[in-house]
């Protein structure tokens, strides 16, 4: 078995209602936010399950109910962000499961989003920020679509503050694709106030047609614990990121009913 080393305590809090929901967290070489994503899953009351990029076992997905592809610099972001990771054996399984009738919920955060576009699970791509620098800031987003597997616990139009940190975060796609995304309501999140990287139409995140695959550049897993994340407009700690994980749990509960 390929265990991801040193993801801290992986158990959900005891007696959590959904602690038997298993959410996979993928580690590639160069992944950075896997431990944070696992923590967020745990704080949301589910059980994080480490998944290993190179796992070729037929059961490599280890029976998880959803998958998070966390942020970082897989393969150093060399060549293009996500370009090499996309070819990992595990990715083929994730793509199949996401496209299957079971519609495995998949969330790609930052580098995870980049990997999902390289894997063609989501349209468009990311290029360097328009200012060409890495940027780390507390970022406000508007939830444009609250019907996806990962956003149903938000209100439509709700503004949330989570962390943005990236170098290649400028979302680009051709006009036709952008128009289609808008028309189909597949823009899931938009930057509010300031567009931090020059993304087309202020797009911070998108969803696939079925709503089970969502990718975004900012990091919900860094806004789940008071005292350790971004500050909202009132200067208080934001835990707005928890909604992503609560949403997927609702989705799973809904399905099992």
């Amino acid at each position, binding site marked *: 078995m390929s265990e991801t080393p040193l993801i801290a305590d992986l158990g959900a809090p005891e007696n959590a209602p959904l602690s038997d929901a298993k959410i996979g967290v993928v580690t590639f070489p160069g992944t950075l936010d896997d431990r944070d994503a696992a923590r967020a899953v745990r704080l949301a009351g589910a059980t994080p399950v480490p998944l290993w990029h190179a796992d070729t076992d037929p059961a490599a997905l280890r029976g998880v109910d959803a998958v998070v592809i966390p942020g970082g610099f897989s393969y150093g972001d060399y060549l293009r962000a996500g370009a090499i990771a996309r070819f990992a054996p595990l990715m083929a399984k994730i793509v199949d499961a996401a496209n299957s009738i079971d519609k495995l919920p998949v969330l790609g955060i930052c580098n995870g989003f980049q990997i999902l576009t390289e894997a063609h699970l989501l349209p468009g791509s990311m290029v360097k920020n328009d200012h060409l620098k890495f940027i780390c800031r507390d970022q406000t987003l508007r939830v444009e679509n609250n019907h996806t597997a990962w956003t149903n616990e938000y209100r439509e139009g709700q503004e949330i503050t989570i962390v943005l940190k990236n170098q290649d975060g400028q979302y680009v796609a051709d006009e036709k694709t952008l128009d289609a995304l808008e028309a189909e309501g597949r823009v899931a999140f938009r930057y509010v106030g300031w567009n931090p990287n020059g993304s087309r139409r202020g797009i911070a995140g998108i969803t696939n047609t079925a709503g089970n695959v969502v990718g975004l550049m900012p990091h919900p897993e860094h806004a789940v614990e008071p005292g350790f994340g971004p*500050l909202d407009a009132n200067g208080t700690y934001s835990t707005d990121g928890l909604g992503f994980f609560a949403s997927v749990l609702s989705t799973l509960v809904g399905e099992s009913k």
Partner: protein
Amino acid sequence: MTTAQKFNIDTVEHAAGTPDVELPWAELGLKQNEFEEILKLLNRRPTAAELAMYSVMWSEHCSYKSSKVHLRQFGEKLTDEMKKDMMVGIGENAGVTDLGDGWAVTFKVESHNHPSFVEPYQGAATGIGGIVRDIISMGARPVAVMDPLRFGAIDHPDTARLVHGIVSGIGGYGNSLGLPNIGGEVVFDPIYQANPLVNALAVGVLRHEDLRLANASGVGNRVVLFGARTGGDGIGGASVLASESFDDTKPSKRPAVQVGDPFAEKVLIECCLELFKHSLVEGIQDLGAAGISCATSELASNGEGGMRVELTNVLLRDPTLTPGEILMSESQERMMAVVTPEHVAEFEKVMEKWNVEFSWLGEVTDSGRLVITWDGETIVDVDPRTVAHEGPVYNRPFKRPEWLDGVQADTFRTSAAGKALPESGDELKAAVLELMASPNMCDKSWVTKQYDHYVGGNTALASPDDAGVIRVDEETGLGVAISTDANGRYAYLDPYTGAQLALAESYRNVATSGAVPMAVTDCLNFGSPEDPEVMWQFAEAVRGLADACQTLGIPVTGGNVSLYNQTGTTAIHPTPVVGVLGKFDDVARRTPSGWQQNADGQAIYLLGTTRDELDGSEFANLRGHLGGLPPKLDLEAEKTLGAILINASRDGMIDSAHDLSEGGLAAALSEMVLRFGVGARVALDDLCARDGVDAFTALFSESQARAVVAVPRSEEVRFNDMAAARQFPVVRLGVVDVLATSLEVQGLFDLPIAELREAHEGTLPKYFG
């Protein structure tokens, strides 16, 4: 033909038979007496490979030959109290301090000054890479980095190149490793023009049982090199070794600079942590300066005393490298470990899982000799201690500079710059704005927003707070705080006191965040040790630092010395960068450095005494003056202040706190307002009356052992009682006013936050885009 013959290799046998061969020892930086010492040690001439090893290991950088006699004080002045929590002290890759609950922390600061001047991006990037490997080699998981930086004048034509390159290099490497950057320094001063200082600090945490040291013990244990392949990095200057026979005329091409591969290092970190978790290595050492020469000789001499290595087993990036060059190469992202034979298979499995290249080089012996072969023929046969630890030690002459009396006599108040000082409200307001927009006091977020400070999810405070705070244990909230500080101007005016003031400030910053100071690391950046005046500055700074550590009761656990930071005969200001680490039982108790949104009506107090101390200050610097004596040091007052801040935060008596340092009260109040955009109304009258100073002095003096705090109304009595019990001066300045949109200094000026922010935040973008 053997490989040795093919390469025309200089073997031990060959050396013994050819005593008269001319060796390029001078080109390799050795002095005549040092070369003679080598001849004596070996009782024959060294082989080319041995010469390579001795020359790099006996360099200033690796042997500390000029600084050693002074650095000893850090050990000699240790008291039992200071040793209490120190698990590993000076001498290992980094010091280790016990945090309790089975946790320990390791941290160290190092310089990468010169490489960063030559190639700013890669120089700074590999600076982070190097210090992080020191932390890994202790058995720890690195958890954060910091970057104290110093540049030339902000408007010098070369400064933008350095700022852009160095900042993106630190970010590019550190961000890719997943290490939050939690603090540092950005200072501009023409004295650093062609000598920017790029210091890098890393901190790591470990469970006690994971502690690893750099020693090769256990006869028969295997020695392995893993990570990146070995290339010609860092041996450019030693290209005389391109031909081991010293007669070849064609110099081979060697890289002028090293390029870092942060991805390779990230994989190396995870791979090492997996090795530690399964206890697969006995000893481990990172490869930094002097590469394999350093790793083999240190591991061997710290362990059983002997090692045998076959050098052709080293995986090469450049097949033209000669044995001497392989021994000297400083290629990044490599580690060396000692593994028992029974763990070899498991070790290899971990390497394969992480796709890390490795090669078995040899084994530990009890021969007392480090024997290196090349295709079976012996090319090195030395006592490893003579390479690693028994290098030359110099008692370099030092002499107090004659110019110093003149400089110290030239005080700010008696100088032309000290005339026509701001007095009226409008003048003082303008001066505050000028100060807060000045290169050293302005907002540094142009730099820090290029750094990830969230990754890991354990960052409880980061820049611009006084200290960076990292949670170590998620269950209990156990954590650490770190601050790094130095003031080159103070140290120039008086190196003994200047070094102590750096420690005092760092200590104060850590205490202000609410943590209990525990340990010290230092990076001593100075000019040439061959200049007796510089050597005097160095000796004084070390003496000062060691004395002050003793008084404060916290040990130096590791550090680094960077000499020769000078252009021609002009040395940089002596710049002892001091990092202090403190402990929190629960980081939830940390104190942020600004008024908070929910703090309306909280009382603002100033702790400490304000004197007329403007010499060496930021205000004097704005007026182009540097002379007089630095502010008075009072370590007992620092201790008391620290105790008050720590206890008050633990008992919920203060909600925000900010220490006073460069820029004095004016800077502290401005920064507290700007932190969360919350206004305040203060008055200086009581302070001025009590301390006998005018408003200008109250605002801009840099007297030490002071801090501003915000106390909830309900806690005022308790807070005052506590300060009184410790006989520490406090004065109430005013109140936090959430509705106010300004910093109002009653009777003098009302400074809108928006105006202050614009001045404060505009400076770096103006120069650097």
